């Protein structure tokens, strides 16, 4: 059974690949009905599928493909001219074939599809016997007659293979095969005759396929030229095709291996880990460089790090490439679609494809198909006018839709141009107003370009009548959602009477992306760079409030603003500075300005899921691991755009929360808390000794970093800090600046205790926010009095 499954899988993969090509070939065939090369190719597909399916006992499929093959064979002989009507039938049969293959894929058996109607129509094309209405069972005998020419043909095709054989060898081989076959046939015929006579018509139906098989072989025995034919029945066909294909293609076609997508995904995951490790390595390298400047081993380390990072990048690109598929895979179905649509709508439409070889990640290729179908349908239905109108307007009666794909930086652009009637911005606005999708005010302020985007609104349709093709007001909405899901952008341009051009800009891959890292308070977030249009620095007074929402003026446009802290409920611990940065996000056609505190930089990040437990958090698309091993959340731009509408107040206001500090009444000396920051243990002890008599609580820190983390923990409410200036890791000045960033500690008295006595040192101290400046050496009393003064020490508490 496993073996069968394996063969079945091969068969399905092969068949679907063949069919994909088939659609395009057929449409091409219609324009060039006498292209023998094309006909042969199409014929071979039908033939191969027939052969393989009969081997696998898919009787219905075999039956159908057999009749298709018949028609195509006639055409190949020139006995039949492919008219549009015949084409319709052929295309219909191919649709049936696809349906059957899908059923086989799902259930491992064919059936459930009635092919008899199509088969009889196929037969009518062949102009064969008039008894078209006869049920399938009775067609069997006809089948037996028809195949003869067909087989001759296969043989001429395959003869080439045998030409290499010596004459004698050939004769011998023929002889052997013939004998073998004849013997088999005889047995089979004997058996069948018996059953046939007694069998009911249903049974006959079942036997039909098997039946014709031996009969076909009979003519072959007569014509020795056809020797390969014996093998070209059941088993033979697939073998033939396989044997012939490599032989012919080997020199021209690149060698390929089919790989399970799961393996590629796994590989991609591993590369992701590697990229993270690389980022980390680079960061460590930078740190080491700083610390051990000028040391000999640094150069070596540098070299290794750069090689690793180079190779990792290359490896990542290489693996990404293995996942790439040409977009032609999607494009292929459109010629057929356009053909059907133009016949259905009585329009003349031509499709031009460019850049089919452009490659995209497999997962994106799969997602991009549906949106394109909707857009093209829309172009056919609403864009291209009927021939009469086109002629009146002096346009070519045949409308053209151009489908282009090309790379642009890190993105791929799929452009759909039509030369139809174009979008009428005023009409779009009017319609949207009627349907209540926009307000009068919105409509008045809307630019043409914004008006074009109205077609993506759910529920919008400009078609006066709903047709089979479009106008239900669903399609374009789907386009927008799907493209946004891929972090893509849609750009529309249109001119009334000239045509419409739509550009879908989609990132190349999904797993590893370029991101802009932004900071808000002490948190970092990653924004997919594909959605970032630009960043601007603004001062607070550039932010205006309109109807309770913050906006800013960006060149000619008004940009809605939202603070990232409001969206992610970030606690405002740090004092926001005079300036803020606005990251202008663009998605599809809408824009939003996201206010952040800092811009950290651009980085390549690997998207990781937050897992089952945390999935579906609004506004968060996933997480990534940064060079320092920390986790950074990735912003879901689509969701943010939505959430921004709900966040009303997006102010850059200071939320001064220093009230908490001074509320506690001091009732005893130990309620006062002072931190001593000095890297020298001796100095700390001297200070401690000087202050201990007061009975206040003292906390020590060895350097700025430590002091800062003690502050952040918030275990103590400090009333003052004694800060040394000269310290490792973080000096007193930097510490003071950092501390002043916190709202809570804005008014915390910082007292510098230092041996630096220069005037400029004092100045720096003041600049960084120190209130007092004590120079070493100092007397214990002096220090004590300065501290008392600064903490407002109540003298009655003095012991």
């Amino acid at each position, binding site marked *: 059974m496993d073996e069968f499954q394996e063969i079945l899988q091969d068969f399905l993969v092969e068949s679907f690949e063949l069919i994909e090509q088939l659609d395009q070939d057929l449409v091409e065939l219609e324009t060039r009905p006498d292209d023998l090369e094309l006909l042969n190719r199409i014929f071979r597909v039908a033939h191969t599928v027939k052969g393989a399916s009969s081997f696998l006992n898919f009787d219905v499929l075999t039956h159908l493909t057999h009749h298709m093959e018949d028609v195509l064979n006639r055409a190949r002989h020139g006995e039949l001219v492919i008219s549009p009507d015949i084409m319709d039938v052929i295309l219909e049969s191919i649709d049936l074939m696809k349906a059957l293959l899908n059923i086989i894929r799902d259930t491992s058996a064919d059936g459930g599809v009635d092919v008899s109607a199509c088969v009889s129509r196929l037969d009518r094309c062949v102009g064969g016997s008039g008894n078209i209405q006869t049920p399938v069972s009775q067609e069997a005998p006809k089948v037996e007659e028809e195949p003869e020419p067909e087989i001759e043909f296969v043989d001429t095709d395959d003869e080439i293979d045998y030409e290499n054989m010596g004459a004698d060898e050939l004769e011998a081989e023929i002889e052997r095969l013939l004998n073998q076959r004849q013997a088999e046939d005889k047995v089979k015929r004997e058996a069948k005759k018996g059953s046939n006579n007694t069998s009911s018509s249903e049974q006959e139906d079942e036997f039909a396929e098997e039946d014709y098989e031996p009969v076909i072989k009979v003519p072959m025995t007569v014509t020795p030229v056809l020797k390969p034919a014996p093998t070209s029945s059941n088993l033979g066909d697939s073998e033939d095709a396989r044997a012939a294909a490599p032989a012919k293609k080997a020199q021209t076609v690149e060698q390929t291996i089919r790989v399970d997508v799961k393996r590629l995904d796994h590989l991609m995951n591993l590369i992701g*880990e590697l990229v*993270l490790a690389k980022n980390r390595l680079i960061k460590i390298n930078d740190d080491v460089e700083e610390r051990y400047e000028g040391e000999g081993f640094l150069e070596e380390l540098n070299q290794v790090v750069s090689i690793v990072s180079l190779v990792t990048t290359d490896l990542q690109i290489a693996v990404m490439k293995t996942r790439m598929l040409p977009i032609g895979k999607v494009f292929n179905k459109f010629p057929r679609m356009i053909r059907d649509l133009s016949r259905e709508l009585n329009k003349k439409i031509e499709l031009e494809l460019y850049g089919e070889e452009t490659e995209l990640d497999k997962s994106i290729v799969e997602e991009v198909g549906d949106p394109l179908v909707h857009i093209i349908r829309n172009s056919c239905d609403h864009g291209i006018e009927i021939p009469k109108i086109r002629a009146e307007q002096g346009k070519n009666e045949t409308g053209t839709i151009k489908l282009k794909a090309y790379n642009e930086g890190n993105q791929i652009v799929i452009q759909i141009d039509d030369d139809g009637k174009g979008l009428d911005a005023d009409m779009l606005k009017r319609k949207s107003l009627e349907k209540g999708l926009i307000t009068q005010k919105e409509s008045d302020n809307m630019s043409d370009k914004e008006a074009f985007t109205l077609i993506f609104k759910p529920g919008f349709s400009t078609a006066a009548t709903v047709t089979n093709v479009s106008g239900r007001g669903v399609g374009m909405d789907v386009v927008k959602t799907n493209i946004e899901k891929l972090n893509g952008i849609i750009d529309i341009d249109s001119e009334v009477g000239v045509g419409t051009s739509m550009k879908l800009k989609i990132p190349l891959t999904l797993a590893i992306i370029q991101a802009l890292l932004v900071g808000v308070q002490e*948190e970092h977030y990653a924004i997919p760079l594909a959605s970032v249009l630009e960043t601007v620095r603004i001062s607070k007074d550039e932010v205006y409030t309109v109807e309770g929402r913050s906006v800013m003026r960006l060149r000619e446009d008004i940009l809605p603003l939202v603070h990232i802290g409001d*969206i*992610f*409920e*970030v606690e405002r611990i740090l004092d926001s500075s005079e300036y803020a940065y606005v990251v202008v996000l663009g998605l599809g056609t809408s824009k939003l300005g996201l206010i952040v505190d800092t811009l950290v930089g651009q980085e390549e990040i690997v998207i*990781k*899921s*937050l*897992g*089952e*437990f*945390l999935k579906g*958090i*609004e*506004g*968060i698309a996933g*997480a990534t*691991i940064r060079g320092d*091993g*920390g*986790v*950074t*959340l990735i912003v879901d731009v689509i969701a943010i755009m939505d959430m921004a509408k709900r966040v009303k107040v997006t102010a850059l206001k200071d939320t001064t929360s220093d009230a908490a500090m001074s509320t506690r009444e001091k009732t005893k000396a130990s309620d006062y808390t002072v931190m001593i920051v000095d890297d020298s243990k001796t100095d700390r002890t001297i200070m401690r000794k000087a202050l201990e008599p007061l009975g206040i609580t003292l906390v020590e820190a060895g350097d700025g970093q430590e002091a800062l983390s003690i502050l952040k*923990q918030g*275990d103590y409410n400090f009333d003052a800090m004694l800060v040394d200036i000269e310290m490792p890791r973080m000096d007193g000045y930097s510490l003071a600046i950092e501390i002043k960033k916190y709202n809570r500690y804005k008014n915390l008295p910082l007292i510098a205790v230092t041996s630096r006595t220069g005037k400029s040192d004092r100045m720096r101290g003041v600049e960084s926010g120190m209130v007092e400046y004590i120079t070493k050496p100092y007397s214990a009393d002096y220090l004590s009095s300065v501290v008392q003064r600064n903490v407002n020490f109540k003298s009655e508490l003095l012991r």
Partner: protein
Amino acid sequence: MSDKLKQVISKQRKHEEDSLKRSDDIVQLVGFVIGDEEYAVPILAIQEIIKPFPWTRVPQVPKYVVGVFNMRGAVIPLIDLRLKFGLSPKKHNEETRFIVMRHGDDIAGFVIDRLTMAIRISKSKIGPAPETANGDDTAIDGVGKQEDRIITILKVNKLLERDF
């Protein structure tokens, strides 16, 4: 693998399991303290126990989901059991640990106040959850009785279940 081999292996496994069961029905647990109470989870549900390290806050989740952290390349949610059990938050200290538990594909880290010990307890000494905490919703699997104390045994799958 041939069928025969499979059979042999499965037979062996069965044998092992049987012998395990017969050898006293012992359950191995890891005990830890949250607030004033001692809890335990089956040792096999624990992937690792680590000292606290930095995590990243995640917005729009209940307070007890403190964030996510990076465990060798995987992003794992971190849940504070103190908060989940309705206790007041407490600063992490020397004894604070993250216990990473796994049940099937679900995985999360849990902040606990202090580890106690690995416990071997026979099944006969485990009683059902108290009446008041019964039902499908409870995270309590049972109550283990030791000589001098009582340990609440938690259901790992319940702990890992998203309830917001």
